């Protein structure tokens, strides 16, 4: 039966019984995606890039944010800018390179030229236009409605009237700070982007990016690997049970649909800032201990301990994951279709990182993360298998996200599903309105 429903009909939440279910139409319907484009992606702050990617005046990168081609650059005055990469004349992209440095951008179609601060500089055949052509700047390179940054993380918003980025980020700011604090001089995006498609709904990667429940089964081979590399003690307690078996860590609602899943000192892997583990090789011990000492000098004992020992997977609504685990990664995922997403992942490291530690960071990163790591391909496979399963509608219609729901107000562990529920509650709220979408829904 086809009927008109709202986003509230797509989520079944029974707080008393502790049941939380999401209708799979939310993951397959074109109408839902159309609403998401309007209500979520045109209203929320979306990650554009990191200030370190455009360090000097003239530096630029081009990338798509929710399908919109954007030039992210530092103009001749040293200011960060975000322009739509489309000529105000007839629309062609005025910059066709991924990255570089440019004083100006020239449209290859009719030759209009723009300064790197967006100002229209040259129009071939200028004499055929009115004298006051562009007096009001309407033919300058169009600027994205809003661009703001926090701790060098730069975001855009397609809604000119949106609240400020800082208000939007809420509690997520503290965790972006924890990343920034890893270096005295600032963090940087390391060259190399992992870009890939996944044949699954974008929200599945959101769920997966902070899912503590799946680790032991989906990533069984990764734990086998750790055991061989670091010895049993690294991943098992003295009873031979995995350290991931018992609920640990906590999940915190950061407001506005953002959530962090974190733990403190409970994770088996080491990292260059600043946690040595034997598997990293004795040669690294001295350098990492030195980084730790410098952290303590700069931040004090307790703050330094948090920066070094806290692992977190933070989900910034709607589609940014910031993972501070064995390495630091920033990941976005945009829908191309209900069953297809475009993923980008970058690695962050301290600008002043010693070469040996940078090497260690890169080894750490790709061991687990990315489309050829020991973990991510299996994640992607799971998401794709889920998406195929959603073809069984009507008949098999609901996903369950109930784990730990009855106790979520006292404490939510990393293996619980509070982080997903927090996302979906916000999603439901943002999508809801008088507009109803029509599709088949089974009761």
């Amino acid at each position, binding site marked *: 039966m086809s009927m008109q429903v709202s986003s509230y009909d797509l989520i079944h939440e029974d707080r008393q019984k502790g049941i939380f279910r999401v209708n799979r139409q939310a993951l397959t319907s074109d109408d839902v995606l159309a609403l998401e484009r309007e209500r979520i992606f045109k209203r929320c702050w979306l990650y554009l890039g990191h200030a370190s990617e455009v360090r000097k005046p003239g530096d630029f990168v081009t990338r798509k944010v929710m399908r919109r081609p954007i030039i992210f650059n530092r103009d001749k005055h040293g200011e960060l800018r975000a322009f739509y990469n489309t000529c105000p004349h007839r629309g062609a992209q005025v910059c066709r390179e991924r990255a570089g440095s440019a004083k100006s951008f020239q449209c290859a179609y009719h030759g209009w030229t723009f300064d790197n601060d967006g100002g229209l500089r040259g129009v071939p055949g200028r004499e055929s236009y009115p004298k006051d052509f562009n007096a009001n700047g309407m033919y300058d390179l169009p600027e994205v409605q809003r661009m703001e940054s926090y701790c060098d993380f730069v975001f855009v918003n397609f809604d000119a009237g949106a609240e400020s980025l800082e208000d939007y980020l809420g509690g997520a700011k503290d965790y972006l700070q924890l990343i920034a604090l890893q270096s005295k001089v600032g963090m940087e995006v390391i060259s190399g982007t992992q*870009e*890939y*498609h996944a044949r699954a709904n974008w929200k599945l990667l959101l769920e997966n990016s902070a899912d503590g429940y799946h680790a032991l*089964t989906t990533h069984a081979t990764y734990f086998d690997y750790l055991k061989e590399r670091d010895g049993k003690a690294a991943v098992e307690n003295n009873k031979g049970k995995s350290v991931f078996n018992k609920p640990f860590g906590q999940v915190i609602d950061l407001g506005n649909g953002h959530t962090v899943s974190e733990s403190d000192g409970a994770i088996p892997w080491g990292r260059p800032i600043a946690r040595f583990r034997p598997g990293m090789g004795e040669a690294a011990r001295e350098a990492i201990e030195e980084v730790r000492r410098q952290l303590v000098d700069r931040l004090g004992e307790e703050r330094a301990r948090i920066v070094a020992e806290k692992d977190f997977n933070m989900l910034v609504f709607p589609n940014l994951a910031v993972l501070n685990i064995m390495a630091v990664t920033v990941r976005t995922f945009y829908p191309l279709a209900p069953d297809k997403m475009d993923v980008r992942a970058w690695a962050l490291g301290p600008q002043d990182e010693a070469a040996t530690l940078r090497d260690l960071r890169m080894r750490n990163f790709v061991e687990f993360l990315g489309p050829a790591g020991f973990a991510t391909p299996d994640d992607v*496979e*799971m998401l794709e298998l889920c998406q195929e399963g959603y073809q069984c509608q009507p008949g098999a219609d609901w996903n369950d996200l109930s784990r730990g729901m009855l106790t979520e107000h006292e404490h939510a562990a990393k293996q619980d599903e509070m982080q997903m529920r927090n996302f979906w509650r916000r999603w439901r709220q943002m999508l809801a309105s008088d507009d109803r979408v029509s599709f088949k829904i089974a009761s």
Partner: protein
Amino acid sequence: MLRLEVEDFLYREAALLDRWQLMEWTDLFTEDGEYQVPSTDLPPGAEPSSSLFLIYDDRFRLEQRAKRLTKRTAHAEFPPSKTRHTIFNVRVLEENGDDITVECAFVVYRAKREYLDIYPGMTEYRLVRGEDGFRIRRKRAVLDLDALRPQGKVSIIL
């Protein structure tokens, strides 16, 4: 003649990979052998110690990669996909005593579930000639892709 010997060696490697004889594949590497795949947006010459690659395996890790891929719990490759490694445009770039640098083009086809994914690229091999034939000191496979679209992953060995 050297090129023919090298080609025989590379075809043998391809056959091992297509037959999923992955532990035998690891035997082709020297004790300090490495296997690398750069991210698709990196310029030529980028190094995995300072740039984000897709794969940065030392000998221990490439062995672990092979071992992992033969398990039922390596979900992306269970059941194992069908692959075909094709190699062409083989050129010996340098011969320095027992050290040989070889470059070749490749296309790897991977069929899994309802999809056929294609991985085109170029591999640079650093080979060492030993008593019992060649060994790989470093294999660096550079994909001719703008991104892993639509492939999504490199769960096989290229």
